[in-house]
């Protein structure tokens, strides 16, 4: 199924929650979904018999200062052989959105990674804590304005 069809399908079910895919000159396009409805949209995409997005390939954060953080979901259906990209834009000051780890269990660790490196909070996540960095690390390194620390627990680092 092409992305326009998927959009039409979602727009019927969730009016106002999904925007039409923007025209891109190069690369892949995406569907913009509102933060509040991402969990319902994902569950719909996974369970509906003509969509069957059974696999979450990747979940990534992207930082667009000064306003927004984006969570990108790359979905694929191993049964129907189609894929789609979803994006949720959240404010940089207070980035939070519902978790999809109840839809695809693999999202659990991917969301922890996005929390760890971008500081995005996933509401309803079963154990949202740092995954790659130490638990007492300060800041979220993949944000564009991240300032590199000069010391960690008495270990000095040089430029």
């Amino acid at each position: 199924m092409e992305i326009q069809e998927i959009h039409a399908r979602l727009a019927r079910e969730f009016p106002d929650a999904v925007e039409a895919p923007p025209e891109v000159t190069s690369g892949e396009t995406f569907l913009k979904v509102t933060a509040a409805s991402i969990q319902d949209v994902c569950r719909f995409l996974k369970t509906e018999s003509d969509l069957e997005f059974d696999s979450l390939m990747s979940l990534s954060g992207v930082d667009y200062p000064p306003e927004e953080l984006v969570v990108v979901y790359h979905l694929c259906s191993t049964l129907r052989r189609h894929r789609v990209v979803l994006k949720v834009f959240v404010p940089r000051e207070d980035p939070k959105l519902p978790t999809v780890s109840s839809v695809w269990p693999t999202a659990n660790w991917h969301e922890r990674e996005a929390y760890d490196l971008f500081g995005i909070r996933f509401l309803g996540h079963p154990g949202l804590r740092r995954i790659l960095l130490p638990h007492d690390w300060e800041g979220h390194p993949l944000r564009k304005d991240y300032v590199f620390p000069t010391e960690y627990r008495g270990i000095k680092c040089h430029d």
Partner: protein
Amino acid sequence: MTRKREFKSQEIYVNMGPQHPSTHGVLRLMLRTDGEIVSDVAPMIGYLHRCAEKYGESGTYQMMIPYTDRMDYLAGMNCNWAYCLAAEKLGNVVVPERAEYIRIVMGELNRIASHLIAFGTYGLDLGAFTPFFYALDEREKILDLFEMVCGARLTYSYFRIGGVSQDLPEGWEQRCNQFIDDFRLRMKEFNDLLSHNYIFIKRTADVGVISPAMAIDYGCTGPVLRGSGVRWDLRIDEAYSLYDRFRFQIPIGRGEKGAIGDSWDRYMVRIREMEQSCDIIKQALRGLPDTGEYRAKVPKVFKPPKGEVYVRSESSKGELGFYLISDGTDRPYRVKARSPSLSNLCVLPAISEGMMIADLVATLGSLDIVMGEIDR
């Protein structure tokens, strides 16, 4: 006459790792156990985190290639390849035919090398020492072949955006052909040593069973997914490079020794994949054009147009994907690596409840994880 004794049992927490021979790198498993029975496993990762994605954003597109080597350091060629595929799609680069054939040969040789380590260390995990030496002996010959083409034995950086860094040296094809012929004969020894060994089967059959639905839900890919009986291989299902010209089988777990998706099935998928890789290499060496470019003309300052791509390829561990965003400059705005080992490991807590500690070792080994790729 025996006297009945009352045993008091109590749950305790045990650290397995981060320095533990069976965790395949610096992985720490927090176990909650009651005697030998595991009631909960919590993997703690991140000991090998080297900010690869941050580095990716701070350098040019080409500068990321050496970092990809250090992700899955047992299959550096496959990691180079996945990244270059993404950069090429982003920049609309067409790779010459000769380069594609060279890439396929390297990718498949590295797949064999990586599966050999999986085979050897899995034997070690379960107490069989000899297979490891047989595996390393063969792997050394593959590394010799790699050394001939790029000078490196572990971190190759042989792939470039648009092709490979240099052409094959004189006589390389014959040597590679000879290796494959010899290797096919050695495969029988591997099976005699380990695959059909009675103790090995007892240790792995019906252990750590992953159902097909569970494997997909947890994002398992590669031999772990195929071990559960799902016929899914990106080389065929989303044929990239020139894989659509090749004829080969996708081995899947069939539950020959126990349930479908047990540790033996995952192990056996890797052994059979090595045979298939031999077939692919033979076909590629036959089809390799004698003349032609080994690298497309790509400008030194590589500036792909604004846009984004997610490209995935079948590495030896599973689906290795790169998500690249270009803002039109010579540096990527965002580099995200989707590593197969991370998703393959996150299924472990779900399948290990109620398992013996020794079986946990057998299960973990059968997932064939590489920490460099998980922590990045």
